[in-house]
């Protein structure tokens, strides 16, 4: 009984964790290409979800049309943000870059809520809310769908980074100067990574919006996403997947045992603790690269 309970906690934690990874992939893409920690990723996720909702509900489009349309629009938005706001800050101190992404976060949230209002709405993706039984273990269907989406996205990106365009993006992540010297447009590459991250935000927005409703709370995923990204090493997509699994399990199991002791709500505490511990003990995370030093 106890063991089955633990297995259930672990399984559901792992699935939730993969959903964090889904969010964190966006952070990783941008950090990899430009070393910019995008604190507006939460807001982008929120905008993505609202956009799909607006297209599907308000404009009456079917979901299969609304989602790609929103993805295209968000791709443009991401590229635009990079072009207008971030590009001119290249080479400035990190504090200004952080503040810029925070400003974008505040702006996007304010604008979205001013346009569509703050009342929580939902998609109705057609995923049943009845749990799935695997032996003794109860699993939420939407979490399973989301986790599958995360894994799918991961595979897509792994494949993308093996194409010629993807190789160029990895080259940009390695060395700006050398990229320029062989005619790779670093600016366009960084813009592309913002566009891709915004598409990831749409995916995360849909899944999380289905789980907890489309409202302002979507932007609060940022802390969990950041923790996952940092634990995974900030520039490794595989690291983000693994870190998501770890955080999800630790959080789900930990909070179940910790909640009765502290009177509930220990999830955020665990996440913050993991973030602090990671930075203190292993700042480059599980798979972050420290620059290769050859002796």
């Amino acid at each position, binding site marked *: 009984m106890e063991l089955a309970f633990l297995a259930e906690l672990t399984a559901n934690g792992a699935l939730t964790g993969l959903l964090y990874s889904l969010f964190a992939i966006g952070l990783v893409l941008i950090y990899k290409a430009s070393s910019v920690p995008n604190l507006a990723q939460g807001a982008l996720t929120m905008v993505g979800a609202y956009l799909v909702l607006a297209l599907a509900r308000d404009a009456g489009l079917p979901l299969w049309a609304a989602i790609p349309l929103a993805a295209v629009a968000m791709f443009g938005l991401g590229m635009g943000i990079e072009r207008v706001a971030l590009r001119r800050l290249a080479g400035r101190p990190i504090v200004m870059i952080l503040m810029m992404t925070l400003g974008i976060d505040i702006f996007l949230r304010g604008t979205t809520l001013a346009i569509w209002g703050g009342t929580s709405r939902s998609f109705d993706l057609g995923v049943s809310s009845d749990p799935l039984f695997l032996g003794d273990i109860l699993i939420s269907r939407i979490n399973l769908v989301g986790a599958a989406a995360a894994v799918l996205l991961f595979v897509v990106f792994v494949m993308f980074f093996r194409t*010629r365009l993807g190789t160029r993006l990895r080259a940009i992540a390695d060395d700006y100067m050398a990229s320029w010297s062989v005619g790779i447009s670093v600016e366009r590459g960084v813009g592309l990574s913002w566009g891709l991250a915004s598409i990831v935000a749409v995916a995360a927005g849909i899944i999380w919006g289905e789980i907890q409703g489309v409202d302002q709370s979507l932007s609060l995923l940022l802390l969990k996403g950041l923790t996952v990204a940092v634990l995974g090493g900030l520039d490794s997509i595989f690291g983000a997947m693994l870190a998501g699994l770890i955080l999800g399990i630790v959080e789900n199991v930990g909070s179940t045992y910790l909640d009765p002791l502290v009177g509930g709500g220990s999830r955020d505490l665990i996440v913050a603790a993991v973030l602090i511990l990671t930075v203190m003990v292993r700042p480059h995370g599980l798979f972050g690269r420290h620059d290769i030093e050859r002796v």
Partner: protein
Amino acid sequence: MTPAPDKEAAKILSTNSIEVLYDNVMLAIKGVSIQVPKGGMVALLGSNGAGKSTTLKAISGLLKAERGRVSRGEISFEGTLITDLPAQQRVEMGICHVIEGRRVFEHLTPDENLDAAAPMSMTRATLNAEKQKIYEYFPRLAERKNSQAGYLSGGEQQMLAIGRALMTQPRLLMLDEPSLGLAPFLVAEIFNIIKKINKVHGLSVLLVEQNALAALEIVSDGYLIENGRVVMHDTAQALKSNSDIQEFYLGGGSATNFHDIKHYSRRKRWLS
């Protein structure tokens, strides 16, 4: 001395007294005029901080990345003015700059390094053929083409950097200190390959070197840069036999007392 018209036409690159400003305040080079003949090999010599690398960056357009700009003068490549073009466009036109310090893409394999440098318009088949050519020039790279580039030896990294530059299909290759930190036999090997590529493909080469001895062996012309100015320009043969050059850049020479050195510096001032 004005060059004859037909000689002018044979230039692939010429800079006309260019000045470079960093951060709008620091004048790094003060009127450098050099010319590279089509299919020729030219060396820029000079000591540390003389302005050799800055000259190359001005030509390749990489200055912008370091907050520098060409504030006076002009650069023309195959008769077109390129002074203000973005770096990417210059690469497309056929100028490729192998930057100092063998900056390979460390986390990519050598094979991917070559892929990344190929223009996106190149078809997969051409790409593979081009890669094959480069592996023929540098058999050592072929052996290690799937290991991580960051873990290659210094010589292999330099070869990879040159090979990567060749993937952009350049007509003018600019090399910044390819011999830096390499064993003499590797320097000789790399220089031989450069010479071979120059001969076989008619690729023009502009070489920046501190290792003047090795450089003067393979080039036809040399420019000597001091304090951001060209102070001497002659054929490689003449430079090699010049006593001042021997004294200061080739090691050896005959001057052993201060009088000769003083004499040299006075002349240098006059030249600049």
